């Protein structure tokens, strides 16, 4: 039987168990217990978006989600999405387009962009800006990120499976 202070999460397709307190956030468990540090703690308040991961395919702020509340959801982090074709298209476009500088917001920006292209493979500029508006970047001025997402979308074959 599961101990009351442990939680088992479905992360990147694997069942992982962590010692956690009821107040521990998904972000804390991902980072400190599973050493999945691609999601970052930028504000711990759900504003900057640097902690974005997918829960059941939708972008969520892992700093606002309690780990225990996620035990029935499929969690995907940047580390688990790295081999997905849409993610690889985005990564290539981000690299070629210079869409990051310090890179601190980048994993979350890519996760949010991945979720966008999954649901809307050919977004307009306005749709990209709206979909990513909860992800802060203090380095780039955003222009090259928009261009990179646009570019990745254009290069995706119509039938690309996510």
């Amino acid at each position: 039987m599961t101990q009351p202070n442990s939680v088992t999460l479905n992360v990147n397709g694997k069942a992982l168990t962590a010692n956690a307190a009821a107040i521990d956030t998904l972000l804390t468990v991902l980072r400190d217990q599973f050493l999945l540090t691609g999601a970052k703690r930028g504000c711990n308040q759900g504003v900057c978006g640097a902690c974005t991961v997918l829960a059941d395919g939708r972008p969520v702020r892992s700093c606002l989600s309690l780990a225990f509340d996620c035990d029935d959801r499929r969690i995907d982090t940047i580390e688990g999405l790295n081999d997905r074709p849409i993610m690889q298209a985005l990564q290539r476009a981000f690299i070629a387009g210079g869409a990051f500088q310090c890179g601190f917001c980048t994993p979350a920006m890519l996760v949010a962009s991945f979720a966008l292209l999954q649901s809307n493979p050919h977004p307009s500029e306005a749709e990209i800006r709206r979909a990513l508006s909860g992800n802060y970047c203090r380095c780039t001025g955003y222009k090259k990120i928009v261009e990179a997402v646009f570019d990745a979308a254009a290069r995706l074959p119509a039938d690309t499976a996510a």
Partner: protein
Amino acid sequence: MNKPLSFAVGQSAPQIEAQEKVSGSAQYIADLYRPNMLHGALLQSPHAHARIIGYDIAQAAAMPGVHAIVTGDDLQEHWRMGAFIKDEHALAKGKVRYVGEPVAAVAAETEALARAAAAAIEVTYEELPATLSPQEALSLDAAVIHEHAADYIKVFDAGTNANLCSRTSFQEGDIQRGWRESELIFEANYQTQPQAHVSLEPCGAIAEMDANGRVSLWSANQSVFRVQANVAESLGLPMSRLRCLTPKIGAGFGNKMEPHVQPIVVLLAMKAKRPVKLILTREQDFEMVRARHPFQIRMKTGVKRDGTLVAREVEVLLDGGAFGDDSPGVLGYSLLMSCGPYRIPHVHCHGRLAYTNKMRFGAFRGFGVPQVTFAGETQMDEIADALGLDPIEFRLKNLKREGDCWLGGQPIESNGVSECLEKVRAVSGWSSEPRTTRGGESRRALGVACSAHISGLLSTGAIVRLLEDGTILLNTGSVDIGQGSNTILTQICAEALRVPLELISIASPDTDGSPYNWGTTASRVTYMTGTSVIGAAAEVERKIKDQAAEILECAPEDLELVPGGLVAVKGIPQRNVSFATVSGRAHWAAGGPIIGSHSWVFNQKTVDPKRATVVGLPFPQIGAFVFNATAVDVEVDDTTGKCKVLRAWSACDVGRAINPQMVEGQIEGAFVQGLGFALFEEMVWNGAQLINPTLMDYKIPTFMEAPSELKAIIVESHDPRGPYGAKSVGEIGINSVAAAITNAVNAAIGVRVRRLPLTPPRVLEAMLGSETTAGTAQS
């Protein structure tokens, strides 16, 4: 001289850390873990100004899992740090001087436990009167914030006196004659607000001490060497006992140049004898790192009726906060740049910096220039309007030209400012469309502004090693804070040695092994370190040729490097040897391993004493000027006063773009950070308490505020002293943004707003006529 090859310099190579950054595997300070590591937490001051009577740590110390508690009692009185004035302890000692100042720290088994223990420390204070504005601080009856300021060690003639931290004055020409020769004089007061850096990564550090007492320290930083110096000074340690290293940096805009928590974390690790990690919360990062100085500026300019600038007086008053930090530098530098890139024969720029009971203000991208440029460039538009001149024509008439000197008398080696201005005029459609238009419920106008910055300051080195197999290791000690300097320096090295980028790796800065680098700050890495990379590579080239000459039995002068890691007889490329052969021989047979090194200090004097008189100059050698012009198209909502930047163009003379895509990235990023400064970013205090230290309450620009049409324009003036003609780009792009936006808003609404940020209420108030135009024009 060989014609430069195009395969490295001038190419938009991707960041060499790109795969790490897009895969989520790049490690920043919070991503590092050490075996047996403890977590640190801080207790911060609840008072703006109070004497510390005593600490009661008994309850905190008794908590199971608490391993070390440190307070000001662990520090000696003379252990003080500071870039210009040694006025700051690692933790408050004797007194607290602002709300949020670290007073004590705890190392414990978990972060939660460390925080609980820190909260359990009882500190007895005797409250003192707080001084919250520079005016108040400089009044005769103000409570003195640093009683022994006169005795502090200072690196320049600061003129410190009571709460006056420093003062600086530049005089050139004869200002009284300037006023006499002016036909019109314009004078007004301007105010700018404190801005938070908000690098997405909060500051933090990890320290550990080995059994011999030597400390290793990883931290979010902009210079491992400044970290080493600050920790050594503030903890009384010999520098050699401290090794400073760097993980990836989640951006630094000045906030990570001087210390944040590094000395405290080292103190904890030494006391706990275990590794300690402390990452600031976002709130702490707002409250106790540093921020952009609020400026109060009086700007007075005299002109001839034909639009020729004759005289300028600038007077500034800076709130420095509780400690000197980089503030004396910001004061001096803002004055040096306060006349903009214009010919003004008679100048008097002077200012004061006050200690107050607020968090320290310090370096922030632009280093005081965005503030004085806001005043100077909006006044330029006011003058143009009064004289009936087009703002761009008026600027072009007065711009510095070939052969002109900067304020103070330093020669300008390369100057692309008029090209910047012409480029934004052309691309913005300035001359072909009316500047101001009215829509149904909005008004819209174009605005423009110019600025300048520097690229050269202090000292730097580089070491280039040819490894046994002919590959190359570059080591500069320059921390890449995210802007891509590792890539830029590798490109410069590749160009110098004519090898593909893949042949070179760049070492991570480490005070044990890297040559000194003052820091990734002041837009200096490309120009300063790039020059050292070329120098070190030249020594490697010479040694390669000496080796190859013996192998090929010819004179070294008859040899040349051939692309791809070969050295060949000039004109006979097939008579060659590889770097691998040369390096193998050097390692095992003759000559010794091939190592090239170079170091230098920027030595161009800021001031020519025959031209200018200066008091309180914090940096006697600073220069290598870059230039910019920004144009914006701004819409103002008639009903709400809300301003939106619809289109923007920023042209920067960077000398030469080593990597054009990265140059664009700097210009675009600087523009949007400047947009936040212009329109809405503002740290707000209620009395002594910062009331918006969260991202919920302090907004930075998002995808929605950044203009979709944002064009970075690269102007290349090919500086004769810069590496491959390069100067700098890190800061220049932010300097004129607020001024250009304000000029557009002023043109749109027909009223001059002289205070930032241009929030909807402030703009609306101006439109409704309740903000009077305080400027005066005298004939």
